[in-house]
């Protein structure tokens, strides 16, 4: 593994008496594409929420590029170079796709927020169009976001997360709520755009076929812990993973 950009040690999170994350340890190398799997309630989203500052860990440390980011909030974590997308796309519903990206670009540009020049400039609009083209949603640019299909909103959510050129991108279930036929198309668009930007990506996913196809490394979560960590072929064949994550014990006749 190359020099790790993210180092997580002894990360824990409890809600009252319920432990959602227990002793999570992880080193993430630059340029890795990591798939995170686990049943509902296994701690995947809690982990992403802690790294991205949405939740404060009960114990443990998170270091990004050598800097302790354990207690930082979302804005500071974003500033440090980690951006994220959400299971439920967090976009500006009453605005057009174009305006969503324009505002994201306006915030990401250094000095733009102090500027009295209009947000809508030709140069920024060109960059917005280029970004939407990269994610294959330029044809929806003028449409109001809340009226768009889930797939387009998911892609927009990721596109907006990338405007500040983050080093690490954490995607929480980028294909949830999307039909099986569309999943590969969405992931192809996402991954080609992210690979072109040479991003380190960690994505949470329930579909094992999607994980096997796009991830170079897989983390399997169970009961708040990482129970397996390695290449997809190894992790997906692991007996504990098959029992706790894939659910073979519940479906003994499954393939």
């Amino acid at each position, binding site marked *: 593994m190359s020099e790790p950009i993210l180092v997580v040690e002894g990360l824990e999170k409890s809600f009252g008496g319920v432990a959602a994350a227990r002793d999570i340890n992880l080193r993430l190398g630059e340029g890795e594409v990591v798939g995170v799997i686990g049943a509902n309630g296994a701690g995947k989203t809690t982990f992403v929420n802690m790294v*991205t500052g949405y939740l404060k860990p009960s114990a443990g440390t998170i270091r990004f590029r050598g800097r302790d980011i354990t207690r930082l*909030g*979302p*804005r500071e974590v*974003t*500033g440090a170079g980690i*951006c*994220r997308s*959400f299971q439920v796309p*967090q*976009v*500006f*519903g*009453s*605005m057009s796709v174009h*305006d969503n990206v*324009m*505002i*994201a670009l*306006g*915030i*990401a*540009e250094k000095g*733009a*927020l*102090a*500027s*009295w*020049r*209009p*947000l*809508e400039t030709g140069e920024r609009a060109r960059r917005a169009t280029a970004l939407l083209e990269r994610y294959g949603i330029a044809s929806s640019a003028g449409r109001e976001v809340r009226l768009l299909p889930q797939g387009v909103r998911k892609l927009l959510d990721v596109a*907006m*997360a990338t*405007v*500040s050129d983050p080093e690490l991108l954490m995607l929480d279930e980028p294909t949830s709520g999307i039909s099986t036929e569309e999943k590969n198309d969405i992931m192809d668009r996402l991954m080609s755009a992210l690979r072109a930007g040479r991003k380190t990506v960690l994505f949470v996913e329930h579909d094992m076929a999607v994980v096997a196809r796009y991830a170079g490394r897989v983390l399997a979560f169970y009961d708040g812990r990482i129970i397996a960590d390695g290449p997809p072929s190894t992790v997906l064949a692991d007996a504990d993973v098959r029992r706790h994550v894939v659910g073979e014990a519940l479906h003994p006749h499954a393939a």
Partner: protein
Amino acid sequence: MMDRTLLAVAVATPLLVGAGFVMPSWAVFLVSAAMAKALVVLGLLVLLRTGLIPFGQALFFALGAYAAGMALEALHATDAFLALAIGTLLSVVVAAALGALLARYRDIFFAMLSMAFSMILYGLLVKTASLGGTDGFNLPSPTYLGYAPHRGAAETALYVLSAVLLGLAMALVHLYLASPRGRLAEAIRDNEIRVEYLGASVRGAICVKFVIAGALAGVGGILSALSVGHIDPGMAYWTSSGEFVFVTLLAGAGSVFAPFVGSLVFETVRSFAVQYSPQTWQMTLGTVLLLVIVFLPGGLWSLAARLRRARA
């Protein structure tokens, strides 16, 4: 190419100034009152775009006026610009302090907490005998950098100052609303989580908007007090705040012109309603607002958008 709204402000402001020299005295007074109110409503428009509406904007309306009045009295001065500078400065300082606290609250909590602050000021003013208690105190006729208009021209001079300040405020607010920081308002209204995850401070942005609204309300209060020549604690009372919210809803948030149009309609309806049905003028105003809410939910300004669509 120059922005169409800025061009419209650049054309409308001299026309508004010119109207002050030809209108009868009662109309000059009525439009002056509308312009003072429009400045407060312009500030509310900035906040309304974030989805927040304070029920205590009268705090700054009264604060600006009292600060200006007290400063003029203490300094034995009469200069309108000095009054504006001191009143606005105090409004900004207080708005920054309260804005930092209020930015933590949303919806009805934001509205009610802002109202509570305005009622604290009201209570203080009512109990302060040195400021005239419930009676308030009178202001001298203002001078303008040494120019002391004679009795007939005093009203017109203040009218011109109000029109110029309103035009300037409309242009600046329009530029602000179109800028990246201004456009953040709609983003905050839609999704605060995404705004934070894009790297912008939601509370910081709301605080800045609250300061802008506070400063404009302060200026509006000073102009209103100079126009009437009197200040009293009623300026800080919750019904004054309600009136500003009333006009904001009546006007709509579609354009920086909307606050002036809304204020002018409000002052005109109120003047005529008081004149022709002194016992039921509130009912007349209430009926007007009800009709606007039912038939023009986007406020009076949405009529302009409808006409534009109909023509297209």
